[in-house]
């Protein structure tokens, strides 16, 4: 009786424990809920600009709009004119180069190569008006600040193509001026989605689909999600916007982090939280990028200039993207891409104009960091490859003149002559061109920070912690459980196990055999006595 009661109590206890252990637990992450609450409330403007008398007039030029803005926001232009958006450069310290002022003004990339000599076209992404293909732009003229490109909330403002930064002639300046407010996705996107000459060309994780997308594509910007604006994370104190990209930046300074909202211990699982020391949030939470539209992964300038019947032509790939353009060369586009992964400590090196080429492929930018550097984390990157023109004698990259309004002005896109384009480009840069050129492989690293997936789609452990073909297979030199092992130890261990099993089997066989023989002998002995 006593035993029966004990057994019943015991069995019930066991059942209770099992139920608690096996039950899937749905624990609410309170920090996450707080964030949702915070960003669910969208800011309401304290001023309705359509009611301001200063904006109730016909604007002849976009500069008139800026003057009207300045009539109330009397000092704001000073903030703007101290920003990288305006100056196209920012002071930075680069190991081996010292302090450099880097930005769109002077960096090289392996897309359209360089803005210099092509300002008239590139100024479409400058927050100012009237930038021509020369060095005469007046960066201190406050009237040339373009307030509207960032603050238009009517979604009708757009800059004209190759119009030195002026708005398209169809833009209704009154409507735009009266609509202004906090920048929306469409404002930032008007440049940052189309950089490189088309939607999603450069970044791969920033594109027009994010204007109206689902959580599967981007949990933060999703229309069916929290629907954040860019400036919710990229906050700006005095127009100095937080966060930057290492295609033009080099310092570990004023960066935007996921941790700014989510903290460095965002998971309820301690095991996952320990990862955040060496693994960036993005590494696990952005399993794929370019999820809606493709991005350019490879750009071969060496194939540019082919003509059909003396005319430039274009061809398209299966996704409908140009895979060849006479003016630009051939491209490879990809969609739903698994990022590459690198160690990154927040600083980067750059190929600066005039630098000698000392390794091929030429690293246009390189992200610094290693597993030995305690400040480095693993981040996902897009690696863009390609080839571009360089001076074979002076052994440096050439920034060619690509754009001119018409033929005969040395621009490659009009004349298809690399010699004159290189000559004109290098003349603007103040560097000699030997007249001898060829094409050299280049590579560029673009950290992937957007298109964060819902948590269910984040990487599972075994996508990295696996012996074969894990996502971090290329990052070597450190020990990762599940991926790495000491082959000598494993071999010794395997043989120890094999030998001990064999030893046991042999020992037992001898036992059975000797016992069997013993029995036979005993049987014989007994038989002998009986007979």
């Amino acid at each position: 009786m006593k035993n029966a009661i004990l057994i019943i109590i015991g069995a019930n206890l066991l059942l209770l424990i099992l139920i608690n252990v096996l039950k899937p637990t749905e624990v609410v992450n309170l920090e996450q809920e707080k964030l949702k609450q915070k960003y669910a409330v969208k800011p309401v403007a304290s001023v309705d600009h359509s009611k301001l008398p200063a904006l109730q007039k016909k604007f002849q030029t976009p500069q008139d709009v800026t003057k009207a803005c300045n009539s109330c926001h009397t000092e704001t232009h000073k903030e703007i004119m101290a920003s990288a958006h305006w100056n196209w450069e920012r002071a930075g310290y680069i190991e081996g180069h010292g302090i450099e002022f880097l930005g769109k003004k002077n960096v090289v990339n392996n897309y359209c190569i360089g803005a210099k000599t092509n300002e008239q076209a590139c100024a479409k992404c400058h927050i100012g008006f009237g930038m021509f293909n020369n060095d005469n732009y007046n960066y201190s003229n406050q009237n040339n600040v373009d307030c509207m490109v960032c603050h238009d909330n009517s979604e009708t403002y757009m800059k004209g193509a190759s119009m030195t930064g002026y708005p398209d002639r169809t833009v209704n300046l009154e409507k735009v001026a009266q609509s202004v407010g906090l920048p929306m996705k469409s404002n930032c996107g008007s440049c940052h989605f189309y950089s490189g000459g088309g939607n999603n060309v450069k970044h791969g994780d920033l594109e027009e689909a994010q204007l109206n997308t689902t959580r599967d594509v981007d949990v933060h910007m999703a229309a069916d999600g929290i629907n954040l604006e860019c400036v919710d994370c990229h906050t700006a104190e005095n127009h100095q916007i937080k966060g930057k990209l290492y295609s033009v930046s080099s310092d570990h300074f004023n960066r935007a982090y996921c941790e700014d909202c989510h903290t460095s211990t965002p998971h309820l699982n301690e095991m996952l939280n320990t990862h955040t020391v060496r693994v960036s949030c993005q590494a696990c939470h952005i399993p794929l990028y370019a999820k809606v539209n493709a991005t350019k992964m490879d750009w071969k300038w060496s194939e540019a200039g082919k003509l059909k019947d003396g005319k430039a032509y274009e061809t398209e790939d299966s996704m409908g993207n140009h895979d060849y353009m006479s003016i630009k060369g051939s491209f490879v586009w990809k969609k739903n891409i698994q990022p590459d992964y690198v160690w990154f400590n927040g600083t980067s090196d750059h190929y600066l104009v005039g630098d000698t080429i000392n390794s091929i492929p030429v690293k246009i930018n390189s992200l610094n960091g290693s597993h030995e550097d305690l400040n480095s984390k693993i981040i996902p990157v897009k690696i863009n490859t390609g080839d571009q023109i360089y001076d074979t004698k002076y052994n440096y990259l050439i920034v060619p003149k690509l754009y001119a309004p018409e033929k005969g002005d040395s621009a490659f896109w009009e004349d298809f002559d690399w010699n004159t384009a290189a000559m004109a480009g290098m003349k603007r840069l103040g560097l000699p061109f030997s007249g001898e050129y060829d094409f050299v492989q280049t590579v560029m690293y673009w950290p992937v920070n957007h298109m964060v997936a819902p948590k269910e789609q984040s990487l599972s452990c075994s996508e990295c912690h696996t012996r074969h073909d894990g996502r971090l297979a290329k990052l070597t030199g450190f020990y990762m459980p599940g991926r790495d092992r000491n082959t000598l130890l494993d071999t010794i261990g395997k043989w120890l196990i094999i030998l001990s099993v064999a030893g046991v089997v042999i020992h037992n066989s001898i036992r059975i055999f000797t016992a069997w023989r013993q029995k036979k002998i005993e049987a014989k002995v007994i038989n002998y006595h009986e007979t």
Partner: protein
Amino acid sequence: MKSTNKVYIYKRFERFWHWAQAALIIFLAITGFEIHDSINIFGFEKAVEFHRDASIGLMILIIFAIFWHLAFDAWRQYIPTQKNLLAQIRFYTYGMFKGEPHPTEKTALQKLNPLQRLIYLGFKLFMIPIVVVTGLLYMFYKTIDVNNVVVISHFKLESIAVWHTFGAFLLIVFLIVHVYMTTTGHTYTSNIKAMITGYEEIETETSGDESTTTPDSDEADNLTEKN
């Protein structure tokens, strides 16, 4: 004259400790080698979770076992001795094939033969400490914490992992040989039965009545200990 006698050898806690430890070590081996990506049963994530939980279970059990060994002087069972050591080795490699009797007598006071003493001492002072110490280092391994909490960067994770794996291989070899050696008792299963029930059939040379050394139940544990 040979005869067999039932002798009470393994006390209740000892049996619980033995089987719990066996289960935990086997489970830890399975999950551990899954983390090592040698096998695939639960999936990496679950394997890590289970391995950590089971390791905490094992460490709690070890703490209890240490306390038990000290409290009941059971640690003396493992004091190595040279007496009969060669005879024991000779028995396993030669004598038992000839049907010779065990050179050492098994009693509640002297459960282990000289070879067992040596190997179990190695198990307790070498194999288990290797996996436990490296396991703890592994568990709390951090390079640098942004919240400035723990820093273990003096040991490379690789060396911790290699020693941990080394300990695991030793334990597996121990397990294989140990399980086999249990079959070398009076009959193939008498040792295992003893570890389950506490009572072991033991060959004795004399036909003398040994029932006095055979307590009827676990309640007599302490009495025998005090002898």
